[in-house]
């Protein structure tokens, strides 16, 4: 399995300059305060500073350092979704996402979340941050925001501008940054220009963004010319509030100045770029922004010009562009001023709609395409998630429900396969709450179908059934009718209505066969196999399963192929053919790994399930090493995606493995931990195997020991129980030898020992000073040093320590 990444910090576009002590200090503070908020005006460098701190603190966080870019989020409810998406946590059916997120973060080791740009969602960020740190002891949060979150555990750290030159020196941070960026822009500035650079740094108040924008212009203007022009700009500054803080005005003046120097077409492009929610690529820019006066072929050069002027940033590795939040906001204001906002956002929505329709067709609907084409479409579709959300917001805001609904149907990124079902349900509900007069019957039926899909993943089965049935009434598109039949087959089976499920599987298959739709033929056949298996008709189940896999192979999508293989594995298991079952599960695992390796988090729940099943079957076959490897991988995947049901499934597998290896103690412990976990999440489960296991344990280990193992296993945390079987680690016996501390040299100096010894006599600083013939201030300083070395917070603690640690004889 590909190693799961431990951070998502971006490659920084250029060298970071200055703030060495601040970074160091913030790293230390993050070890002590749970929430540190970097506050300050836009452009002061909060994000860059936070990224530096996060990168430096990263190696100490085995659970990772995760950047959550909130600027691209517009609605409060998406804050949690975005955190979950970045961490790879998927919603558990029928449970609040926050709950799953907490369970995931509580389980692991130290972890750092970087919530960047909280200001527009400050209340929600405050609530989420407070809730997370309250329940997850090893979590620290570093936030950047124009205003503090105002929660109890927060330490507000005000980001200052870069140091200004004291005299005419060139070692001040602001001067260093300016010179660095000027050099990067290809300008060589000699000693003679230093006084002007110093003047410019002062005029720009050491604001990093302002300095970067100015430095980008040094190829055409000398520092003196820039300084003069920016001075003029201050007097001309009319946009924004005159009463705004000086730094904000300085920054606005610099941005405005840089903007006004752009060519007319560059200005138009810059403002249009503000509609993109996240990073964007050239293709998307061309499709959305090439409207008169800009022609498509011009866009490359215009973008290049904006990059050259530091207004647009470019990530060469990923081939995408982005705007700093401060610039994006400025550009969005210009877009509104130019009365282009509606038109460009509408175009953004329709372009996304076309793109997603195309991607969906290539990934799933069209026949006869090779798998690499399908995978590429899937990857491209997923990369548009931020823009998808922005476009859906616009569909709701502008009341363009038809286009919004179309976007929903074609966006597999929103569907439960990889995302959080809450999101698609929320999107559809928001769209459906608008004026629906322009929406056709067919579209309403599609919307209901989509809603049914999301609800199934949320385990709201009866609502899902309602919508699916109603959807079928109005739905005409054959592909979508087939998808509904498949969904109904699945939900009806889950609710124990196998007869009705059979009907839908047959109808779906017939329709798909008539239209030559391989995807839905495979789905229908897999449904028929599942129904037959439920009814105990193993030969029929086998035949349909084989046909399903054959159709899926024809289509090529790894997800559907894995579904066929898993189905065949289940059928083989049912007839007791473990060797064949293991074979099928291994095949499914390979396909799903291929998928998850190509598209982050795609099909992870299915992968975790196949791994757990494969591991259990391998254990029963006596393939212990393979079983251990599969179960460990499955456990890690479920833990990281927050799927407690998946964790419980692994524990059951581990119990089987332990028993197969002759370790009845471990088997009982793991089974007990699984049972306790399932109860805690309200999952019902069959107790048959547990009863049998306990019966065997009682016979071998005795009643008392079995009962005590069972209750110990129930109180164990799932990870601990799992480690026990995976690594053969027995919990330390509660009694036992006291840990012998290695003899270490005292951390205190001789003088500090003297002070500490005098503290045991209850002397005041003044009295100690008298004894030692030093000043009381020096005594206080010694005491501060002693407390720091020993990690104490009061004099009394030192006295206790000193009584136990007499001074080493000299």
């Amino acid at each position, binding site marked *: 399995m590909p190693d799961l990444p431990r951070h998502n910090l971006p490659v920084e576009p250029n060298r970071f300059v200055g703030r060495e002590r601040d970074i160091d200090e913030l790293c230390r503070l993050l070890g002590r305060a749970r929430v540190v908020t970097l506050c300050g005006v836009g452009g002061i460098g909060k994000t860059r500073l936070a990224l530096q701190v996060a990168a430096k603190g990263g190696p100490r966080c085995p659970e990772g350092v995760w950047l959550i870019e909130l600027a691209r989020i517009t609605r409060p409810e998406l804050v949690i979704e975005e955190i979950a998406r970045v961490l790879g946590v998927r919603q558990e059916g029928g449970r609040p996402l926050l709950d799953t997120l907490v369970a995931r973060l509580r389980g692991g080791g130290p972890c750092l979340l970087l919530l960047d740009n909280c200001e527009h969602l400050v209340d929600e960020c405050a609530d989420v941050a407070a809730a997370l740190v309250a329940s997850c002891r090893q979590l620290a949060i570093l936030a950047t925001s124009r205003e503090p979150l105002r929660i109890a555990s927060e330490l507000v750290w005000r980001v200052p501008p870069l140091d200004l030159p004291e005299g005419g020196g060139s070692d001040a941070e602001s001067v260093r940054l300016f010179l660095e960026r000027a050099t990067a822009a290809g300008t060589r500035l000699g000693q003679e220009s230093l006084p002007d650079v110093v003047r410019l740094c002062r005029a720009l108040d050491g604001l990093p963004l302002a300095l970067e924008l100015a430095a980008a212009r040094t190829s055409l203007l000398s520092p003196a010319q820039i300084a003069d022009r920016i001075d003029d700009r201050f007097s001309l500054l009319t946009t924004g509030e005159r009463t705004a803080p000086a730094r904000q005005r300085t920054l606005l003046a610099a941005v405005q100045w840089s903007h006004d120097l752009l060519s007319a077409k560059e200005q138009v492009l810059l403002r249009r770029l503000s509609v993109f929610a996240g990073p964007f690529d050239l293709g998307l820019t061309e499709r959305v922004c090439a409207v008169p006066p800009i022609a498509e072929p011009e866009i490359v050069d215009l973008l290049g010009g904006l990059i050259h002027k530091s207004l647009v940033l470019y990530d060469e590795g990923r081939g995408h562009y982005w705007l700093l939040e401060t610039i994006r906001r400025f550009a969005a204001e210009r877009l509104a001023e130019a009365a282009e906002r509606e038109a460009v956002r509408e175009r953004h929505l329709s372009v996304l709609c076309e793109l997603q329709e195309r991607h969906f067709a290539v990934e799933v609907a069209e026949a006869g395409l090779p798998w690499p084409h399908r995978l590429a479409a899937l990857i491209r579709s997923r990369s548009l998630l931020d823009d998808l959300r922005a476009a859906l917001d616009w569909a709701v805001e502008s009341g363009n429900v038809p286009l919004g609904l179309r976007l929903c149907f074609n966006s597999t990124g929103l569907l439960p396969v990889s995302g959080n079902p809450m999101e698609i349900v929320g999107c559809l509900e928001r769209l459906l709450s608008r004026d629906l007069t322009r929406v056709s019957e067919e579209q309403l039926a599609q919307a209901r179908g989509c809603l049914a899909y999301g609800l199934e993943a949320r385990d709201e089965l009866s609502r899902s059934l309602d919508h699916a049935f109603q959807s079928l009434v109005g739905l005409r598109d054959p592909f979508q009718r087939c998808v509904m039949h498949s969904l109904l087959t699945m939900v009806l089976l889950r609710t124990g209505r196998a007869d009705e499920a059979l009907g839908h599987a047959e109808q779906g298959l017939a329709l798909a066969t008539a239209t030559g739709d391989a995807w839905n033929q495979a789905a229908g056949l897999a449904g028929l196999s599942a129904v037959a298996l439920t009814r105990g008709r193993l030969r029929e189940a086998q035949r349909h399963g084989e046909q399903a896999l054959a159709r899926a192979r024809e289509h090529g999508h790894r997800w559907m192929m894995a579904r066929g293989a898993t189905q065949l594995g289940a059928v083989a298991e049912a007839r007791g053919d473990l060797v064949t079952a293991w074979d099928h599960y291994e095949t499914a695992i390979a396909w799903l790994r291929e998928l998850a390796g190509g598209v982050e988090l795609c099909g992870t729940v299915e992968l975790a399930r196949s791994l757990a099943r494969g591991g259990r079957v391998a254990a029963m076959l006596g393939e212990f090493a393979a079983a251990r490897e599969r179960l460990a991988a499955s456990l890690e995947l479920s833990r990281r995606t927050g799927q407690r049901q998946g964790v419980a499934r692994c524990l059951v597998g581990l119990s089987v493995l332990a028993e197969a290896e002759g370790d009845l103690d471990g088997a009982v412990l793991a089974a007990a931990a699984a049972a306790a976990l399932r109860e805690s999440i309200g999952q019902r489960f069959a107790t048959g195997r547990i009863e049998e296991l306990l019966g065997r344990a009682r016979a071998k280990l005795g009643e008392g020991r079995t009962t005590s193992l069972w209750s110990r296993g129930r109180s164990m945390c799932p990870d601990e129980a799992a480690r026990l079987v995976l690594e053969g680690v027995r919990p330390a016996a509660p009694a036992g030898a006291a840990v012998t501390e290695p003899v270490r040299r005292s951390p205190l100096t001789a003088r500090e020992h003297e002070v500490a010894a005098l503290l045991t006599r209850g002397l005041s600083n003044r009295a100690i000073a008298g004894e030692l013939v030093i000043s009381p201030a020096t005594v206080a300083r010694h005491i501060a040093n002693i407390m720091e070395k020993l990690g104490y*917070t009061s004099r009394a603690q030192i006295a206790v320590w000193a009584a136990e640690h007499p001074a080493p004889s000299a």
Partner: protein
Amino acid sequence: MDERIVMVDSGTGLALTERQLDERSAAASILLRRRGVRPGDTVLICLSVGPALLVVTDAVIAVGGIACPVPAELDEARLRERIRDSSARVMITDLRAAVRAAEESRVRMVLGAADLGRHGDALRQSGHGEPRTSGNWPRV
């Protein structure tokens, strides 16, 4: 320890004993260290005259800092000037006007006197203070 009184608050008449001063300034000094104050750092102190002022000043000196008292009575514009002209990274104040005045300065952290040890109990800290065992974040 003798119960020598070292200060009487003229407003409330409450006395501060030598033991209390020693304890509280010791507790405050360690919190200043943990907030990153290093020997040689200037720390602005804008508190009205009273026990907290004495405790905090002693604590700043104990960590090797340079105490820089700013009269609490100054108007906001004058406060702003004083704060801006200092190179302090940390300010200790309970005054709202001083907190506002620290905007646009180079002060990184504003701490309340309460953050450095609650009145009457030097062992317990409120607000930003945290017991040593809090969290399992690896110590720096």
